[in-house]
């Protein structure tokens, strides 16, 4: 699933490793989320949003195809 996690993470100057530590996952999981190869749970989405100071809409919302 496409998302804007990478842009938001770069904006707050976090590395994948730092974001991973903040949300209690591994760096590989953050990498897969950014590539759209892993769909995180809503709980993890929220944790990522809190970590990069964005809303769910800003990071994950996608218009219907």
């Amino acid at each position, binding site marked *: 699933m496409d998302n804007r996690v990478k842009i938001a993470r770069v904006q707050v100057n976090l590395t994948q490793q730092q974001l991973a530590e903040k949300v*209690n*996952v*591994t760096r*590989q*999981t953050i990498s*897969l989320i950014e590539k759209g190869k*892993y769909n*995180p*749970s809503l709980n*993890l989405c929220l944790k990522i949003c809190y970590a990069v100071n964005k809303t769910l809409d800003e990071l994950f919302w996608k218009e219907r195809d």
Partner: protein
Amino acid sequence: MKKITDERLILKNLKSIRGAYTIQTLGILGILGYDWITRGSEAVFESPLWFIFIVSTTAGLFFSMDISVSHETPKRTPKKSLGISTIIIALISIAVGIFVSFSSKSDSINGLIVGGVLFIVVLIPYIYLYYLRTKQQD
């Protein structure tokens, strides 16, 4: 070992356990099959592996009941379903009990025991289903 907090790895771990369980079950079935061929059915039923196989299969069936209940579209209330099931199980158990009582080498006590055990053993999953259905309605 450190506790896994990553949801992706937890899921991956569960999938690995499922794979290992499948291999283990196939191994058990292979050994039991070999025993059956070389030493006959008696040896299979006496084997502790048979006991493990039956217990794990029964546990698996009970766990999957939760999923089956979530899938079903309720036609009757859980109470009514349990009532109907109990009556049918009781009728079958009585029939089996009577059959055992009148068969050769057995007396009425044997029939009572067989019927009673059958009734209880078959009723337990239906009581569990009743519990799952009522829980789902909440």
